Structure formats: C-alpha cells, structure tokens
C-alpha cells in the first residue's frame, strides 16, 4: 500500500479506473446508495466505500442521508480543473496560431505582390 493514498485533487481522483466507473454510474442515473454501486460494478463493499470516500474528498461526489440510507450523486463541477487544463492548453496553442496567422499574411503578400518591399 502507498503511504498516503490521498487523492488531493480531481486529477488524482479520476486517475483510478474504478473511480471513473463509479463516476460514470452516477452520471447515468441520479442518486445511488453504496449497495447499488457494489452490485452494479461487482466490487466489494469496502472497496466501493473507499473509492466513494476519495471522490467525496475532492468533491466529485456528494452524499445525502435519507433515513438510514446514504445516497451518492455526482458533482461534475468538481472535475472542472481537468476541463480548465484542456482549455488552458487550447489557449496556449491559439496564442501561437494567432501569431502564425500574422506571419502567413506577410508571406502571402510577399509571394503574391510583385511590388512588395
């Protein structure tokens, strides 16, 4: 076992395939108690509970108590950092390409215009 299996952010939380399965399951159908997660994914109760705990720690999953039942649901907003990373990457490349556009306009003029300087 790792010394600290702490999943401190959304990236770590979704890095584990089982946790993504849980997120997927919750994404497809509202709230679910842990025993349904256990049954539908075919994993043990302690494992399901462990993963749900990690997901709760990063806020990807929220829990609500109804009587003796704890109902889990997805909070996709917690996955926003991942979304933001991709958007940031996109912005970086867009910045490059916007400059490339300027260079290309000049090259086009050079090539097309006989009178270019």
């Amino acid at each position, binding site marked *: 076992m790792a010394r600290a299996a702490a999943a401190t952010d959304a990236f770590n939380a979704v890095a584990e395939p089982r946790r993504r399965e849980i*997120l997927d399951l919750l994404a497809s159908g509202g709230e679910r108690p842990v025993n349904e997660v256990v049954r539908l994914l075919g994993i043990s109760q302690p494992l399901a509970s462990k993963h749900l705990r990690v997901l709760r720690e990063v806020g990807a999953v929220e829990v609500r108590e109804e009587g003796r039942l704890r109902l889990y649901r997805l909070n996709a907003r917690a996955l926003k950092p*991942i979304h933001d990373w991709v958007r940031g990457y996109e912005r970086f490349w867009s910045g490059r390409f916007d400059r490339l556009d300027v260079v*290309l306009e000049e090259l086009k003029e050079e090539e097309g215009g006989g009178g270019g300087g």
Partner: protein
Amino acid sequence: MAGSKKAEVTLPTDERILITRGFDAPRHLVYRAWTEPGLVKRWWGGERGEVRVAEIDLRVGGAWRCVMILEDGSEAAFRGEYREVLPNERIVSTEVYEGAPGAQALNTVTFEEREGRTTLTVLVEHASKEARDARIGSGMETGVREAMDLLERVAISLR
C-alpha cells in the same frame, strides 16, 4: 484578420493530445513559417514569451532548439530531433523541455491543403506515462480523456 479562430484540442487517448487549426494560406507557406528560424521566432512563444533562440537543422537526425524568455525573465529551453521530414506534408520530431530532460514527447505535424487553405494538425504523443505526467504537471495522470467524456455526457456548462 483570422484572430478569432481557435485551436481545437482533443484527447484521442490518454497519451495523446491532438491540436487542429485551419489557416487561410497554402500549405507551402505554413510549412515555411513552421520551419524557418526567423519565422518560427515570431510565433513559437505564443503569449508566453519572446523567442530568443530558434535553431533548426531540418533533416532526419537533425536537431532543433528553441529558447524563450518568460515574463519573469527566466528562460525556457526546448529541443529535439527530427525523425521524419516530408516537405510541405509532414514533420515528425521529438521534443523535450530542458528543465525535465526525461520527459520526451513525439510530435507529428501534418499540413493538408484544400482550395488554398491549410489544415494543420499537431499530434503530441508522450513516450511513457512518466514522461507525460512530468510534462503535463503534477497530478495529471491517466483518465483525463474519460473525465472530459464524462463532463460531456452529463452535459453541464463549465465555461
């Protein structure tokens, strides 16, 4: 004039990042802008910094190196080697950040022309999971693509 065009970034697999963008210019010009040091200097840094050094030995086995000056005055140097050079069509090269020399990526750039316009695609592949994680940043592990898919499935607006 075409400043509003956005680069499209997709994640075909966890190891790959695909960047696509159209340009209003024939591909031999896009290729020139991509490969001539004097031209590369003008766009390569994007909004992150001015490019001070651009060295390009454009042949299989040849090396390239770019150094940019970041806002805080520090330098960021990148280098690599050309693996495939198909003029006006495709360039395959390695890329490594000198600050993390273990994390090498393989970049495949393709230039496709249709009716005088060029579609440029850049496929970034990381050599290993470790390399990818080192390059992308701490905490960024597998599952990014799935997370994006998931966000799209639940169809929430996060912009």
